[in-house]
């Protein structure tokens, strides 16, 4: 159909003639998901490494919880964060200044962190537990502290960790349910690429929506192409 082609052309046009509004939206998408990913990585990689390396009672239960978290529906996350941060919500109620307000960028970041962290945990766990166990013992014998052992294992499982982060970023930068609900899709302040796509779809501007989608994909591709270059020889 013409519309799909139109959309792709529209996407290219948007990127090259790109007006300030579009670039602002792109920038905001990147900033929110970037910050959320960094936070998720900081929380998720150590926890994932722990789950992958340690053996303890109840580990399977924790794994099942993580797996479930990997499928957290963004709308449900959005709803829950919304209800927590709402003026009459448990947290919003407290009125503490460090608690993010609804319809602001920090609130969106909170929601995205909740979505991405279980993914980072789960995939880190899988990657780490496939590293040759001999290597852990070897490194420990060489005088590594538990932290250093974990770092060595993470370094060996590099490709897996990269893919974990790629997957985490993918899940949040393309997510619309939670950011829509928590951010409110406010023009000029919380509108990101996905909510803009949603809006244009509802408006019936399908080619513009597809065009924005193309922009999103193109950006994701460029980032990921960079990632593959970073990922080291042989992988």
């Amino acid at each position, binding site marked *: 159909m013409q519309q799909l082609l139109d959309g792709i052309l529209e996407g290219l046009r948007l990127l090259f003639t790109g007006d300030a509004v579009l670039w602002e939206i792109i920038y905001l998408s990147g900033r929110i998901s970037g910050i959320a990913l960094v936070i998720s990585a900081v929380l998720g990689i150590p926890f994932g490494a722990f789950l992958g390396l340690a053996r303890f009672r109840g580990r399977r239960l924790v794994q099942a919880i993580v797996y479930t978290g990997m499928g957290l529906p963004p709308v449900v996350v959005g709803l829950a964060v919304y209800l927590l941060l*709402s*003026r009459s919500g448990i947290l919003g109620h407290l009125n503490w200044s460090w608690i993010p307000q*609804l*319809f602001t960028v920090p609130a969106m970041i909170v929601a995205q962190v909740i979505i991405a962290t279980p993914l980072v945990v789960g995939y880190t766990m899988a990657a780490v537990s496939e590293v040759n166990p001999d290597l852990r013992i070897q490194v420990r014998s060489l005088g590594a502290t538990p932290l250093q052992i974990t770092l060595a294992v993470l370094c060996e499982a590099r490709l897996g960790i990269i893919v974990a982060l790629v997957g985490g970023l993918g899940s949040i930068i393309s997510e619309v349910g939670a950011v*829509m*609900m928590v951010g*409110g*899709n*406010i*023009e*000029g302040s919380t*509108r990101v690429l996905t*909510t*803009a796509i*949603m*809006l244009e*779809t*509802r*408006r*019936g*501007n*399908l080619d513009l929506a597809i065009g924005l989608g193309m922009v999103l994909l193109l950006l994701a591709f460029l980032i990921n192409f960079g990632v593959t270059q970073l990922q080291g020889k042989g992988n």
Partner: protein
Amino acid sequence: APTATPTAESVAVPTQAPPTKAPKLAFTNTEIQQPQEMILATTSSTQDSGLLDYLLPDFDKEFNIKTKVIAVGSGQALQMGKDGDADVLLIHSPAAEKEFMDAGDGVRREDVMYNDFVIVGPAEDPAKITGLKTSVDAFKAIAESESKFVSRGDDSGTHVKEKNIWKKAELEPVGDWYVSAGQNMGAVLTMADELQGYTLSDRATYLAFLQQGLSLKIMVEGDSSLLNPYGVIAVNPAKSPKIRNDLANQFIDWIISIPVQEKIQVFKKEELGQSLFYPSSKLWQEAK
């Protein structure tokens, strides 16, 4: 409830094809068959208010049809019509509907019903609009006091209505106080509640959310410019061989028929103490 009994100011003219008084069966042999499927694209308000859940089972049963409801934005619903992905549309966007008919994308349009918009806001009413008679005055007061106003911002019927009011008020709403949300009505209402701002809402959604604990109050209502007419359109069957124009006509005939119009009038009336939708089909008006 609207104070005056308003007549719908329908921009799109009903088409010439005279509605038949009594709908006839889509097929004559009455043996049990697989229900025929028809796609109805509509704005979310009709689905979210529960109106379609209340009306459609009768229709489906009576004619052995399975009506598939796709609830989307008005713009998307019209686009679905243009692409031939829906058989019949039920929407509230008079100007766009006219354009749609003029372009030959639809073959028949009928008025169905209307409800009305209300301007709602926080109890404190910082812009002091309570009791103002017209929507234009209210909007002026809101803009002047730069009180928060949350707009649908999605080119929906409601948004179009809102933009018309700003135009009549000769105002260009810009600034921090004017929040363009780009979301559905329910989300905008909760957002306005959260931000303690004003918004323009259709009465049905407002009442639904009021039951869920919304704290916003109706401040301005009853202005004739706040009416919200719904139309039904049969999509041009030339769009696709799969379009069931016969079923679409069946549906239109049915929904504008007197008994169904009466049913619309009493929808949730008991529960809420007021009607959510007011029938307005030609047949209904002639009968009155």
